[in-house]
């Protein structure tokens, strides 16, 4: 007879699991409610989702309290790893989701929101991302990643347009390939070290002094390819513009933030120990990838005719920018990564929401695509407030002070300078200048062109409701008054990042 396995509940440390479990509970609840009584209004599900996110947030905050007292926690057979990165990333994930969900309460009716499954899937996806960031076990990362991704594919497809299906299929196929890369990469590390836990891998590799550097590199390549796909680094970015275009604007905004932060956390966990162990190859390759991602994506964004595609390319470029932090790998750089991403999420969600509220059912003659630039011509005359807010978001994205993203860029470039990457800092600065052009192009259309005859102001706000306006308002306020929050943010993030050993 086998001995009964005795594991005390404390050692499982289930509190570490709480933040991930809460959305799952919420999702299940929604599904159950729908089975009991179908045809409930979407607002109910929105509120329920928000409720659970609120609880999730509370759980995270208590976890962060515990972290600041006790430091890094392990749990659930040491699979869960709640350190500063995990908490910060989860905060961003939950925060962005909180801003996203109210966007479902549109003025017009949209297919996807009438399904309760949408909200359930959304909550599953959240939980998947939360798992992904809160572990250093490659298996769990893989599982979290795929849970989230599969839900995401479905969410995109639920938008129920031809383009959304196309986007979902493309994303799905490439995602499957990336999953293959990830598992292959994990396999190599497992083969080399006999472990799938990142800190174990690091220990073993350090112990044998990177004897099999060639294989380490090959494993790294597969990991980089897979994670590069997730955070859309060139040349693994090709899905991004198409998927963003196909998905609803709100979903695109969400996708530009949450999946990527999850991806960045994994890259930080996996690559920074390699870089710190002087795997210079990785540093060079990352350097190259970062520069190419920033620059090339910027150049492609220049030539776009559709604002949404432009924003897609721009978020690729931003991802490249942030990836630089991973490469630099200092505490300041990692802090900058989080700071940047928090500020970016406000601004980018805001600008995608602006597109979202101007979503049209049919395409007028003068537009070549749903969000083509000329749709916004002369917006200042017909919808001055909306135009001003959109201008604000564009300026912030371009890095014009004192708006939110400027501070992120400042700190990011500052961290590059402090770590001795002066050339990289210059490249980042110049790329910001190039990026100025395409953001400005929208500003130019809005402020300086004459409106197309017969276009009235409500073109831009026909989808707006109070909740959408609130989200945009929060984003706008966050963008303008970011400078107040920078200092507490930096201090908060730095302590978390530093105490996690990054």
């Amino acid at each position, binding site marked *: 007879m086998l001995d009964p396995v005795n594991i005390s509940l404390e050692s499982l440390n289930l509190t570490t699991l709480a933040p991930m479990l809460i959305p799952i509970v919420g999702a299940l609840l929604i599904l159950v409610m729908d089975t009991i009584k179908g045809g409930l209004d979407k607002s109910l599900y929105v509120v329920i989702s928000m409720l659970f996110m609120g609880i999730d947030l509370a759980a995270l905050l208590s976890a962060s309290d515990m972290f600041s007292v006790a430091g890094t926690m392990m749990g659930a057979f040491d699979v869960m790893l709640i350190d500063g990165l995990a908490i910060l990333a989860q905060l961003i994930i939950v925060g962005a989701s909180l801003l996203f969900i109210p966007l479902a309460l549109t003025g017009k009716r949209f297919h996807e929101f009438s399904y309760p499954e949408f909200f359930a899937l959304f909550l599953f996806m959240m939980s998947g991302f939360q798992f992904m960031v809160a572990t250093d076990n490659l298996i769990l990362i893989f599982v979290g990643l795929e849970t989230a991704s599969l839900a995401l594919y479905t969410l995109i497809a639920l938008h129920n347009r031809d383009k959304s299906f196309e986007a979902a299929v493309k994303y799905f196929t490439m995602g499957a390939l990336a999953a293959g890369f990830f598992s292959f990469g994990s396999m190599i590390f497992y083969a080399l070290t006999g472990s799938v836990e990142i800190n174990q891998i690091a220990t073993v590799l350090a112990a044998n002094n990177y004897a099999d550097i060639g294989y380490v590199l090959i494993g790294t390549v597969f990991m980089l390819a897979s994670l590069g796909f997730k955070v859309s680094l060139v040349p693994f970015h090709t899905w991004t513009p198409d998927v963003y275009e196909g998905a609803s604007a709100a979903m695109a905004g969400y996708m530009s933030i949450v999946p990527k932060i999850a991806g960045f956390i994994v890259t930080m966990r996996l690559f920074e120990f390699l870089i710190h162990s002087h795997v210079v190859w990785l540093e060079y390759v990352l350097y190259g990838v970062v520069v190419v991602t920033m620059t090339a994506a910027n150049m492609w964004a220049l030539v776009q005719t559709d604002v949404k595609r432009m924003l897609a390319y721009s978020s690729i470029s931003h991802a490249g920018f942030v990836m630089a932090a991973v490469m630099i790998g200092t505490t300041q750089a990692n802090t900058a990564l989080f700071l940047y991403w928090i500020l970016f999420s406000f601004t980018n969600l805001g600008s995608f929401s602006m597109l979202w509220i101007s979503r049209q059912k049919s395409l007028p003659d003068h537009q070549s695509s749903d969000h083509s630039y000329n749709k916004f011509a002369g917006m200042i005359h017909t919808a001055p407030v909306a135009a001003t807010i959109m201008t604000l978001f564009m300026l912030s994205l371009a890095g014009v002070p004192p708006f939110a993203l400027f501070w992120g860029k400042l700190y990011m470039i500052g961290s590059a300078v402090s770590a001795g990457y002066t050339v990289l800092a*210059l490249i980042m600065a110049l790329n910001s200048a190039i990026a100025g*052009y395409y953001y400005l192009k929208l500003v*130019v259309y809005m402020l*300086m062109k004459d409106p197309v005859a017969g276009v009235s102001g409500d073109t831009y706000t026909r989808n707006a409701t109070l909740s959408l306006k609130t989200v945009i308002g929060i984003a706008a306020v966050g963008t303008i008054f970011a400078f107040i929050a920078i200092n507490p943010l930096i201090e908060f993030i730095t302590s978390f990042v530093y105490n996690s050993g990054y």
Partner: protein
Amino acid sequence: MVDHILSILIFFPVVAALFGVIVHKDSIRAYGIAVSVIEFALSLWLWFAFDGQSSGMQFMESIPLIPAFGINYTLGVDGISVFIIILSTFVTLIGIASLGEIKNLKNMIITLLVLQMTMSGVFAALDAIIFYVFWELSLVPMLYIIGAWGGPLRIYASIKFFLYTFAGSLVMLVGMLFMAYFYNQATGEWSFAILDWYRLILPENLQLWLFVAFFLGFAIKVPMFPFHTWLPYAHGQAPTIGSVILAAILLKMGTYAFIRFSLPLFPDASVFFMYPIAVIAIIMVIYTAMVAYGQKDIKQVIAYSSISHMGIIIIGTFALNVEGISGSVFLMLGHGVVAGALFFLVGVIYDRRHTKIMSEFGGLAHSMPRYATIFGVMMMASVGMPLTINFVGEFLSLLGFFKQSQILTLLAGVGIIVGAIYMLTAYKKLFFGEITNEENRNLPDINKRELVALIPLTFLAIWLGVYPKPVLDPINTSVESIVQLMHDKAQTAEAKRRIPSPLSQMTIPVSSIEEAH
């Protein structure tokens, strides 16, 4: 309240602009004038409360903004910045007061008030990042002014203006971050405070690199050859008010920044780069004057003349002695008044004829004698006639640089010749001769609203030319302390020699020889 006068000066216009959104568009002009009068009065109060004898920063305010990264909201003015602030409020006031009937007047006035904030902010900021914030932010209203009210090429011009400056200043931002990093290395603290940076002595090769980084940002703003090509487009396309403020204030940000940052932070690099920059400045002076001569559009003439004058300002700045730097600061004011007025004047005929091509005119002195007179006065001020404001600055700038290089000064001095050539030729084309184009015969002479702008500028141009002392004295006091700082910080013997200490007695050969006798 006087302790916070700078913050009030900065944020009053923008708060007023926000409230301006509520004001009905028929009354917005009165509102704009009222706000700018108050703003101007506040700036006069600043002058009144300013102690011209003190060389340090005054009305300092400091609020921690991002202490974790050493960024504080620090303000303060000295003799160098205080007058540019006053000039900016003044130009905004007369600019708003003289605004013609344009479309979207309300947007224009709100934009101008926002622009006013950024202008006060740049010159009052004593923290590099705060400086940078206002510096960049000033681009936005200007972009809107050029792009929304400009000529046919307005969009090209405004984007070019924005991106060019933006690119340059981002490089400058990297420089600032490096500076802060170096400060951090040296002291263990993060700080972007300019006054803290002043205390740093940087190794010479580091100075060179940082100088170049800052230089790019400033040079594009000034604009210096060969980074100047955005300016003719911006001026050519901008509406009158845009050109006026651009020429009068925004360009001064670059030259001001040279004095505030480059010189005291990098004295050795300043000496190292003195000759190359002087050569660039000379190219600006002569080459752009010649280009101005080749123009067909009167506004382009004035635009290129601005570049030419900025060359003299740069020369004065890099004289690295009290005479030259004081002169260049004064010339900033002078050029602000004069170029501003000239752009106003061009606007006057543009309003009447909707063309700026000189060959369309001729003989305007017959139909618009008063206009011709004011134009004449301003033209003479522009070519540096003594007893006008520009002469003081040009004279001192060139005088200062003469100490550093006689040949180069001689070349820069050619500016007074070529300047006269394009200006007189343009004046002749516009005003002299018989009226050839019948449309010009019955043009109404300058009207009251336009006089509101031009009379004060004319008065200033002459008053400060005859009696510059009230302005020159405080400038001199502050410049002396900067030069002293540079002298103390200079490391190489060359730099020590090139930057004379203003506090030690000037060595006049007379005294030394008499003692020897």
